[in-house]
């Protein structure tokens, strides 16, 4: 090879044109790889979307059940305190924004425990306190 390639520091058996194509090929490789990923991702997304739709259904269902359950719990709690003239029922419980969806079952457990705490507190009332 002549002086040109020596100046470019390319090894003597690879012409600048080959070297150029090799480097430019990396751009093409990135594009091709991305396109391949896109194709495989499309199939993945088909499944994922379907699963997400089901998940929404389930979540909506769970939400509705939770709402009615919450309502029942609150009614039961109000029943417990209905005979206590000094208890004002106050506001109905409202969904709290900051609640974490992932903590749903713990919250449910907490409701159960809270109800028991309430019934126990009512039972613990002396006649004077009633």
């Amino acid at each position, binding site marked *: 090879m*002549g002086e040109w390639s020596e100046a470019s520091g390319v090894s003597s058996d690879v012409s600048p044109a080959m070297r150029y194509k090799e480097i430019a090929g990396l751009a093409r490789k990135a594009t091709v790889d991305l396109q391949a990923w896109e194709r495989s991702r499309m199939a993945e997304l088909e499944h994922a979307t379907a699963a997400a739709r089901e998940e929404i259904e389930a979540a909506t269902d769970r939400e509705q059940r939770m709402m009615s359950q919450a309502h029942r719990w609150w009614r039961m709690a109000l029943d417990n305190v209905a005979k206590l003239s000094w208890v004002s029922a106050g506001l109905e*419980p409202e969904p709290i924004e900051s609640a974490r969806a992932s903590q749903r079952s713990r919250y449910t457990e907490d409701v159960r425990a809270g109800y028991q705490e309430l019934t126990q507190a009512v039972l613990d009332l002396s006649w004077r306190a009633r």
Partner: protein
Amino acid sequence: MIGKKARQQRGRVLAALDALRTRIGLAMGAARNARAEAEFELATLELERQIVTEGCDRARSDPSLGPRPGDPVSTAVWQRLDQVRAAFGQEWADGPARLRSLVAASAPGVAGDPPGRWLGRVGADPGLTAPGLWRIGTCTADGSDAFDVAVPLLEESHLSITSASGTRHAVDALVESLLMRVLSTFEPGAVRVHLWDVGQLTAVLPNFYALSRTSAVTVHDPTRLVDLLDEFSGHIRRIHAEALQGGHPSLRAMRAAAGARIEPWRIAVLYGNGEELEPERRRDLQRVASGALDAGIALILVDVPTALGGAVEAVRLRDERTAYCSMTGADLVVDLDPPLPGAQVSAAAGAIAKALVAKQGGPRGFSDLVPAELGQDRSLDELRTPVGFDEGDPIDVVIGDATPHALIGGPSGSGKTNFLYALLGGLAARYSPDELALYLLDFKEGVSFAGLAPGRKDESWLPHARLIGVNVNTDREFGLALLRFLADELRRRSAAAKDHEVTTLAELRAADPDGSWPRIVAVIDEFQYMFAGRDSVTALATSLLEDIARRGRSQGIHLVLASQDVAGIEAFWGKPAVFEQCTLRIAMPKARRVLTEANQAAVTAPRWHAVINHDSGVPHGNRVAHVPDASSPGVFARLQRSLWERYASGHGSPRLFDGAVAPVLTESAAYTELAAGPALVGQPRALVGQAIAVSDVAFGVALPRAPGRNLAVLGAAQRPALSILDSAARSLARQFRQGDVEFVACCLVDSCAPAVTRLAEQLQRDGHKAEIVPGDELGERLAAVHAGMGEDGARRVLLLYGVDAALPALERKEPGKQSGLDVLRAVLKQGPAHGVHVFGWWRSVARLKDTLGFGGTEDIGALAALDVQGSDLGSFCAGQVVHWSPRPGRALFFDRATHSAPEVMIPYALPEEES
């Protein structure tokens, strides 16, 4: 009032209720949030699916799918996709930078710089190597930085450009820009561009008009693609052959080894119309393409859909400004560089054309063939010299292993002699006389080589010349003599090579460094004269020529044969060997048959040009060179004078053989070497004339005291007869001391009397006894000589002029006495043994026969025949069939004591003719 305890109990209930409310709120909130999250997830998945389906690159620029700041779904999706892309593009991340530096290194200067920096400047690169890449535009991949797009060209790759509708201007701009970069990179003359457009006669790349008037750009006839391809295949084969001969795989290797460009870079731009070429042209094109790159030839095909073998890069235009390129791949769009400003291209082309014309320096002269320093080359392997110029580039003639012999053809006035002078001048200027010896023979009736020998006007001579033969058109024997000499030299060299156990001249010179083994070049102009007759000369010359042509190569003996028409040489019909060995062919304009039948280059060669072909005349070997004027008065003489001043002291003057000039006895080596007096050893010799030979050799009659040692001159021509007897007498006299020889002359031809008297006086002046006997006293004098034979042992030479005129008188017989004729016969028969020799001139063969009588032919041991017929001479030439017819100034000489066959001789000039 309730007590403290009851208050506490109540407080616990209230707190538990509040806590329960909160916990129920949290449970409700969690359920709601879970649903919301599921909905968000679906939204992102759906958006992602849309983006992926569209393709990330396209979706990014789609307003409905592209990133929307503030939209959490969009933000989340694009964030994720960007991460994916970044992961894939990691390898390519520094790609643009690497490509930029690669292009900067491989397309340096003009090859890659913006045109503002170079357009209009004339290149200076000598062109030993070419840049690996040439810039055409820029490109961006996936929003990364832009990088330069460049294509290989010249020895790297061909280029195929495909236009889109309405993009012809863009294609032209691309081609123009590439060509301009190439033309501006190298020095003027280093690149030749050939343009061919199937659809246009002339206006291909009009901005190059100025260059099209030089050799840098040639526009070809749209109907004659075949000529262009033929020309290119010729170049490829020639360059390939030259490279292989030099042991190089390609022109590139040859250039590297030689440190010179050797050949210009060539680019052919072929504009097609998108249709496939006709099958034959397609095959031609593919053939050319496959071998072109190694020969420094690149093709740029525009809309020629032929698939080429070998390296081809492609540019496919999308529109006026953008294209796809095989260098970057089909998915990257290249932004082509903007077209060069037309006016500036025209101006730049004009500047390059002007520089090219200036560089070529107009017509080259003879002095351009002469190197700066004389005699620096060695002829070990070959002889090489430029003989002319092609667009300012010297064109070499090589006489060596592959081209041992040359055949030069051209009609009268085509410049053959001028070419020979250019060749001889170039060679003599490069090689010293120890490296090169010239033997020059011209059968023309001219004196074309005479100036190379010392003359009256110019004392200098060409020190390389050993022999110069001019005006030999009637002396075919001289050509034969030269061939004999060369054959002898060939044998001498072969023997020496054998002694040193080597095979070639180079090896011989290495093995015998002290020996004198110059390469010999024998130039025979109008050599066909040598084969003009159907005789023994032709037969012998043919076989000698074949032998030298076959074997001369390895011994450094080279023939340069020049002729007006080689086809007419009957002797070579059916014997192509001689011509086949002449692989170097030089055809002057209009020369016929020197090149192969299909090679018409000589027909179109202009005046003062020569087609130089080192490939036995096949078209691809053609190099057309302008041969400078080497033969005008004074042109060659100047070089000759320098060479003479340099070498003459160590090298003698050449032997000049001029067939039109009679040799002078006193100047001949044979005469000056004749020893006189006591130094005489062996037998005296009477010199009768000069032999037609390479060296200065004379024919002589040895005169021992033995029977038959008489000389007869036959024929009516007076001058040569006088000359022969004159030189015989004078040369003989030189060998004897005063008084040891006696001359008796008798002149029976009145017109010869003054010459005879002059000879007698000359002999007397030299101190010898010389008397002139009147014709009527000849009989008596002969009787006296006869009677005195053997008495005093003295040498006597009878010089009888016109013996036939004396016969009537001699034949008279008186009773009881021998007739004069009988006495003459007795003297002829018995005299030589007693030292009495007759040098007689008979004006007809029949009169000699009358003189000798029956069976006396053996008494004439030597004869010189003048204007007589060879058929009459058989009995005097040992019964041979003698081919001889009268030739002015020539004689046929036969000495039965030394010759196997008669030989042609040149009588010396008479003393009054000597100047």
